[in-house]
């Protein structure tokens, strides 16, 4: 390991500009002649629009234009799309209703887009929006996930009972047979609470059109600018792909919510041409609560069958997944192929069957949010395993160990083939770090102080490095999920890497440079990472699903290999040796068995001046590109242990200890990885203890600001004990598994398992707020008294 190579805790290069306030986010871009867009949003969860009269708004001061859905339709602008086709059990395609960027005839959730006002200032646009007269015929709304198919409300004409799909995975008959053989069946009902993503930077867009060149530019808060361009051009049709430049500059967090292609950026690009001026929209926090795609929102019943020896025989799961009022970009894949294939967890379970009903409701669209499907699966598996261990009177750690998969590769009944792992090693290390053996002593100490102490495990697995294109194509994905990279070596030997990955907090400018530094033997200061601009990077699939290390960096590694191969050819000419005798080592091209060698920079210069070889024999220059398509998902896994102390008088749950032992494969930068683990745990703890999205029965969002929606704060979290185990991933050249989502996946069941352990009963839902825990503690007292 060198000071800046793979494995070094290099400080983040990008932080210089971020911590000094020099980052450049979409809202920092102001174009000459720019006007401001403000969206009039529906105050109703469900209503037919009888009429919209924009004329009073048109004459307001500063108004440039007012548009409605009719204007988009007149220009043949298509609706927003869902890019993953799910088929129901009966083979029928999912029932996707129309998703216009501006409402046409109906609004379906509070915050739905009714009209856009474009004005000289934002305040003028807001003033004019208030003057628009909309005649609503307010309809009853359905918001409750479990009630969606039963309510006398139809969100979309195409799905009469609000069902988008009835999907399944696994083998029903084998699972039934497993349950028939079972000695014991553990049952659980779970709600996976709806979350509002809340990245620190709200979404924003600036659309621009150049009449001289017929070129469009969109600055947007995107995790995947090329996908945005593809969707905006090929499907929505606002501009031809080769005429549209999408720039996603510095982006302040995404957590999934900035993967999707939304109404606002669509309208900004389109309107820029209509009004012949750049058009800017920046979401405020209230709009973000209402209109960013939310996460999770599952209602699940699950059962686990075990035999007389405590071996897991089978698992059956029924989940209703709330997809909101419209199908967002990847929404259909989240509760299906990103969920059910993870239901085997780390366990050797012979038979699994999962049914998922995706439903429409009059709520904001639901799509991928940090972990996307995998936290939901892990919550089901780890809550069930913990409960089963308790029911069987077994130690939860040892029950897990007895059921761990130990032979690899291992193919589960839910289409995944785990390539490698050592789950017991992570468990052993976690038990040690958590001082599990002395837990009972600590519990007694707490009891003496009138407190309830509990310990909870989460032995999670995730599928990352998304994903082999052929595999996801066969499952309904509309795109391939490879990644591209281009490594441009300059004549001076410095390197620019153009990557299709996008950094919005992950630290790619550092970790990707570490890979280049490691492979080419140059300082990371000699490496620039270029991303987030479709005019610079040829194509890319973007960053989500913990894929940028495993897939994005693998593409860079592949391009680097090509650069080295080309460099050898150049060096062979310069050193007058045969190409086969050239070795590249420690940043130098040398002739094997001699002391003759050239530094990497010397070869770069020779490649460009081309004095030592004929252009017929070898092309000048040193620049190589690569597309890398993964051969499998990667399977990060680990064990988190949470220890809580509950004050039964108030219901306050304090996390006393947190142990995280993760296997992410090869680690590029341990400091950044640890940061990702911390952030992920914070988000998972937020889901478990604090964050609950509440709509009232009429569909108004009650938790529409930070006054009511509780984000985790530093004071809610303990100091984390983070450890690592490493089994290199065999299915990519770098051995990376990915780490971005692990904490958010692992944390919720660890917290709830700890709380239920403390309480002595299972009746607590997320978020386990003080009120909920107080009530559960009252119940515990009653149960104890009854014994």
């Amino acid at each position, binding site marked *: 390991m060198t000071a800046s190579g793979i494995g070094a805790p290099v400080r983040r290069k990008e932080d210089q500009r971020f911590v000094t306030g020099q980052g450049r986010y979409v809202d920092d871009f102001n174009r000459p002649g720019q006007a401001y867009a403000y969206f009039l949003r529906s105050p109703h969860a469900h209503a037919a629009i009888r009429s919209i009269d924009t004329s009073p708004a048109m004459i307001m001061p500063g108004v440039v234009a007012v548009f409605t859905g009719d204007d988009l339709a007149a220009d043949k602008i298509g609706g927003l799309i869902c890019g993953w086709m799910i088929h129901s059990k009966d083979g029928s395609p999912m029932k996707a209703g129309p998703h216009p960027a501006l409402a046409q005839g109906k609004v379906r959730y509070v915050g739905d887009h009714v009209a856009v006002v474009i004005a000289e200032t934002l*305040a003028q646009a*807001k*003033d004019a929006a208030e003057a628009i007269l909309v005649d609503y015929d307010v309809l009853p709304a359905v918001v409750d996930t479990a009630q969606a198919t039963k309510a006398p409300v139809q969100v979309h004409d195409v799905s009469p009972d609000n069902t988008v799909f009835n999907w399944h995975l696994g083998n029903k008959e084998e699972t039934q047979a497993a349950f028939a053989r079972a000695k014991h069946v553990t049952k659980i009902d779970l709600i996976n609470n709806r979350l509002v993503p809340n990245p620190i930077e709200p979404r924003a867009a600036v659309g621009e059109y150049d009449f001289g060149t017929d070129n469009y530019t969109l600055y947007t808060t995107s995790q995947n600018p090329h996908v945005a361009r593809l969707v905006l051009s090929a499907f929505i049709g606002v501009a031809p792909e080769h005429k549209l430049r999408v720039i996603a500059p510095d982006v302040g967090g995404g957590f999934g919510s900035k993967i999707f292609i939304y109404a606002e950026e669509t309208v900004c690009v389109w309107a820029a041409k209509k009004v012949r001026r750049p058009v800017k929209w920046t979401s405020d926090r*209230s709009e973000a609560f209402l209109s960013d795609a939310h996460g999770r929102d599952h209602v699940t019943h699950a059962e686990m069958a075990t035999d007389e020896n405590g071996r897991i025989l089978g698992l059956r799961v029924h989940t209703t997944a709330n997809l909101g009022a419209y199908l967002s970009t990847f929404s259909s894949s989240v509760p299906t192929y990103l969920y059910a294939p993870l239901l085997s967890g780390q366990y050797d379970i012979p038979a699994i069957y999962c049914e998922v009903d995706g439903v429409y409701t009059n709520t904001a669209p639901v799509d991928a949010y940090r972990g996307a499907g995998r936290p939901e699966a892990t919550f089901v598996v780890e809550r069930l395993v913990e409960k089963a261990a308790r029911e069987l009177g077994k130690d939860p750690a040892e029950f897990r160990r007895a059921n761990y998969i130990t032979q690899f590769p291992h193919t589960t009944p839910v289409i995944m083939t785990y390539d490698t792992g050592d789950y017991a090693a992570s468990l052993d290390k976690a038990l040690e770090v958590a001082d599990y053996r002395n837990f009972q002593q600590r519990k007694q100490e707490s009891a003496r102080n009138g407190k309830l102490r509990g310990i909870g495990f989460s032995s999670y697995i995730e599928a990352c490095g998304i994903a082999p294109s052929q595999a996801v194509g066969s499952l309904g994905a509309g795109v391939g999920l490879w990644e591209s990279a281009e490594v441009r070596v300059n004549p001076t030997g410095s390197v620019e890497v153009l990557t299709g990955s996008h950094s919005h907090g992950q630290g790619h400018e550092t970790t990707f440079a570490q890979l280049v530094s490691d492979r080419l033997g140059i300082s990371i200061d000699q490496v620039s990472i270029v991303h987030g601009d479709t005019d610079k990077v040829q194509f890319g699939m973007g960053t989500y699903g913990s894929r940028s290390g495993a897939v994005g960096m693998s593409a860079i590694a592949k391009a680097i290999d090509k650069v080295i191969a080309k460099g050898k050819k150049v060096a062979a000419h310069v050193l007058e040796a045969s190409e086969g005798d050239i070795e590249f080592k420690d940043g130098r091209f040398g002739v094997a068995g001699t002391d003759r060698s050239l530094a990497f920079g010397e070869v770069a210069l020779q490649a460009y001046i081309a004095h030592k070889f004929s252009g017929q024999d070898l092309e000048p220059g040193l620049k190589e590109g690569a597309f890398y398509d993964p051969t499998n998902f990667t399977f990060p896994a680990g064990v988190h242990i949470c220890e809580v102390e509950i004050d039964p*008088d*108030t*219901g306050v749950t304090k996390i006393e200890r947190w142990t995280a032992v993760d296997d992410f494969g090869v680690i590029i930068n341990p400091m950044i990885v640890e940061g990702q683990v911390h952030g992920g745990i914070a988000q998972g703890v937020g889901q478990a203890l*604090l964050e*609950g999205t*509440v709509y009232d029965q009429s569909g108004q969002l*009650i*938790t529409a600001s*930070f*006054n*009511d*929606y*509780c*984000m985790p704060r530093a004071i809610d979290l303990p100091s984390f004990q983070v450890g690592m185990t490493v089994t290199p991933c065999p299915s990519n050249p770098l051995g990376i598994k990915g780490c971005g989502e692990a904490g958010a996946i692992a944390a919720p069941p660890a917290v709830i398992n700890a709380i239920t352990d403390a309480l002595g009963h299972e009746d607590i839902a997320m978020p386990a*707020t*003080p*009120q909920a825990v*107080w*009530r559960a503690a009252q119940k515990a007292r009653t149960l104890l008294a009854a014994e």
Partner: protein
Amino acid sequence: MYAFEYHRPTSVKEAGSLAGQAEDTKFLAGGHTLLPTMKLRLAGPANLIDLGQIAELRGIERTGDTITIGAMMKHAEVANSADVKEAIPALAEMAELIGDPHVRNRGTIGGSVANNDPSADYPAACLALNATIVTNQRKIAADDFFQGIFTTALEEGEIITQISFPIPSRAAYAKFRNPASRYALVGVFVAKHADVVRVTVTGAGSNGVFRVPEMEQALSGNFAAEALDGIAVGEDGMNSDIHADAAYRAHLVGVMARRAVQAAAARG
């Protein structure tokens, strides 16, 4: 935010006459409620009178058995005042529990008291400490000042100039925060005066801050947490929302009252 006229008087007199002349005015103190409400376009006063430049609204003074705090003193200034910490440590501690450092360095005691938010901390302190709210027109006893949520004895154009607190023999504040907003879900202020004990509750009541006579009586005889055993506050009149229903709030009043008494008693 809607457009408004901004005024910045330098004396209470000037502020009062501005309020008398202009239409549709609001006084701006720390602005923690008013400005967010204006940004959301839920309020749109035509004239905003900023009290921030008025020197006579500032200062903390101890005279005899009283601490007097200028209306524009910030929470952090109260929390860090040596005089307040020495004379009424419970008041300094209460101020330290408001919001976060940003809030404490902007929000003011006068603004909080004038707004009488049902979850604010200061109303509980004023009522328990038997404070006097001094305005540009008169002096109002705390008992008469707080008249229900967001409602006070203040007349149109009346400006709080000072609040004076008699120094109690012992006092403490126990606050259970709303997990999201950090306002008081339930806050109980207990103060033992020479002749009487006052117990006040903020956050819990649907009509704002209130006293708990049964607790006051019990503690007047025996200023110890055990004196509260068996005294329960009913659910009637309790707030109920997604964070805490009436039963939980009523329960927390008892828990926080005991903790406040324990803390006050421990002060020795």
